[in-house]
């Protein structure tokens, strides 16, 4: 029997987790990770937080420890561009290198930052934050007393605002939306996050449509549509990502703002899979194809594809979960937001859990400093609960999960 080969295009979270799970499940064939960056798989979440601030070093980022890689015979090839995969032979075609014949291919190509055209003489003052190299280039810019303009009040922009503020940087965030993150966490929680940032010293300018970002000999100028301007020494543009689909398109995969897959991560071509930020996966839970740009999603889908490659499992359809750390507060979210949430705890004191209901049933939660509640709410999703008990701090949420007196575990 010939040795099977699995190739991942991309070497980020989803690819690394797929490789790890293939080995955990006993796959003894060849595993090749092809990355376009010059690094082995690393975790992206710390790039806007602990790594950027210097609290954690490079060593904390690697997903697959050196010893594990050596013990498990994983080929990591960095700095390579994949052109396409031959759909018939599953030969992975690489720029400037020989083809790699694969039995299964995982597209885990992630995304790249959406860019803004920035005229002016000093383009080097404009940063993006997606990769380790981006973070390494940005970190030394964040010194006390400097002025940082951030375009976009999404998770990257807000985490960066918090990290930079803690470093003594004067931070202005500009976003056209009336509230940050409202599309994800709703209006009420958008207001809470807005307050968190303003109370922490961030000049968060919501409802501020952008006219232009430009550089001058002196620095960066952000022109806002209402006629105001923001002057800064350095700027970061964080306005979302575009999925990396060039190689997928050249392969002939079915695309729709990402690579379309079934619930288990299979693409439109046999033995070719997709996972992570680039994948638009059918979610039975959502009843739709969804593309999620979160760490947990990449991990779960990477693991699910490993199962699919080995013809086991039916995919992972867990509710979306993510965290963020901003201004010393731990934010977490699970499920989906809907309407005005019920508040458990101290909203003004930024120590609370907001629980979203839809049709009387729990559909999601957003917490500040209460990750333990998120775990309980995850178990309550889809269930009708006693709302008075939900908001009563003397009621343990796990008592709502377990109706009887039997304690879990």
């Amino acid at each position, binding site marked *: 029997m010939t040795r099977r080969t699995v190739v991942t295009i991309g070497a980020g979270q989803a690819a690394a*987790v797929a490789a*790890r799970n293939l080995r*955990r499940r006993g796959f003894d064939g060849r595993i090749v990770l092809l990355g376009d960056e010059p690094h082995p798989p690393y975790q992206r979440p710390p790039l806007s937080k*602990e790594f950027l601030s210097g609290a954690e070093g490079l060593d904390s980022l690697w997903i697959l*420890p050196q010893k*594990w890689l050596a013990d498990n015979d994983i080929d990591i090839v960095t700095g390579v561009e994949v052109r396409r995969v031959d759909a018939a032979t599953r030969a992975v075609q690489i720029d400037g290198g020989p083809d790699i014949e694969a039995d299964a291919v995982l597209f885990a190509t992630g995304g790249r930052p959406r860019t803004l055209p920035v005229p002016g003489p000093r383009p080097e003052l404009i940063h993006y934050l997606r990769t380790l190299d981006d973070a390494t280039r940005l970190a030394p810019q964040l010194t006390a007393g400097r002025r940082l303009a951030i375009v976009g009040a999404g998770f990257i922009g807000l985490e960066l605002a918090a990290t930079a503020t803690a470093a003594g940087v004067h931070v202005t965030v500009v976003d056209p939306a009336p509230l940050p993150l409202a599309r994800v966490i709703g209006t009420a929680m958008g207001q809470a996050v807005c307050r968190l940032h303003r109370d922490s010293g961030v000049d968060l300018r919501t409802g501020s449509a952008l006219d232009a970002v430009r550089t001058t000999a002196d620095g960066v100028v952000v022109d806002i549509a209402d006629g105001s301007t923001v002057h800064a020494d350095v700027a970061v543009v964080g306005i979302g990502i575009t999925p990396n689909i060039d190689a997928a398109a050249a392969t002939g995969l079915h695309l729709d703002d990402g690579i379309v897959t079934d619930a288990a991560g299979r693409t439109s071509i046999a033995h070719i899979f997709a996972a992570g930020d680039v994948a638009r996966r059918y979610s039975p839970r959502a009843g739709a194809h969804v593309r999620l740009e979160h760490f947990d999603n990449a*991990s779960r889908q990477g693991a699910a594809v490993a199962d699919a490659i080995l013809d086991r499992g039916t995919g992972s359809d867990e509710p979306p*979960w993510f*965290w963020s750390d901003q201004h010393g507060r*731990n934010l977490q979210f699970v499920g989906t937001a809907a309407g005005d949430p019920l508040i458990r705890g101290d909203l003004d004191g930024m120590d609370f859990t907001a629980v979203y209901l839809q049709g009387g049933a729990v559909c999601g939660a957003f917490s500040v400093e*209460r*990750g*333990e509640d*998120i*775990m*309980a709410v995850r178990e309550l999703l889809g269930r009708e609960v006693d709302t008075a008990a939900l908001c009563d701090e003397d009621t*343990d949420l*796990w008592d709502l999960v377990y109706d009887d007196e039997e*304690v*879990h*575990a």
Partner: protein
Amino acid sequence: MTAEWVAVATVNEMGRRRKLRVELNDVAIALFQAGGRVYAFADLCVHQDRSLFKGTLLHGKVICPGHQWQFDLETGYEADQGRCQPTYPVRVDDAGTIYVQPTPKRPEAAAEAEQEARA
């Protein structure tokens, strides 16, 4: 060297939630009870110092409330991170008194045990 056992609590004190935070030589310890046994973890998560006592015991894992790292109840090993939460030897006597040794188990040993359990 003779192991030193320190009485830190009683099983009754663990309450309905079957978890308790105690101090031992100025180190916070999170006790969890499952399957009739008591387990002792360093309370502050090895990741970012969040309190594991505030976390959840689910499916044989202690789940940190901070970023949901999942530590194996037996070994303290976080398989996806490749890191170990310090755990301490525990003994419970017939009277229900919980004793903990103040020196953590060797994390590498726990990791190796985990690897072997998988193999």
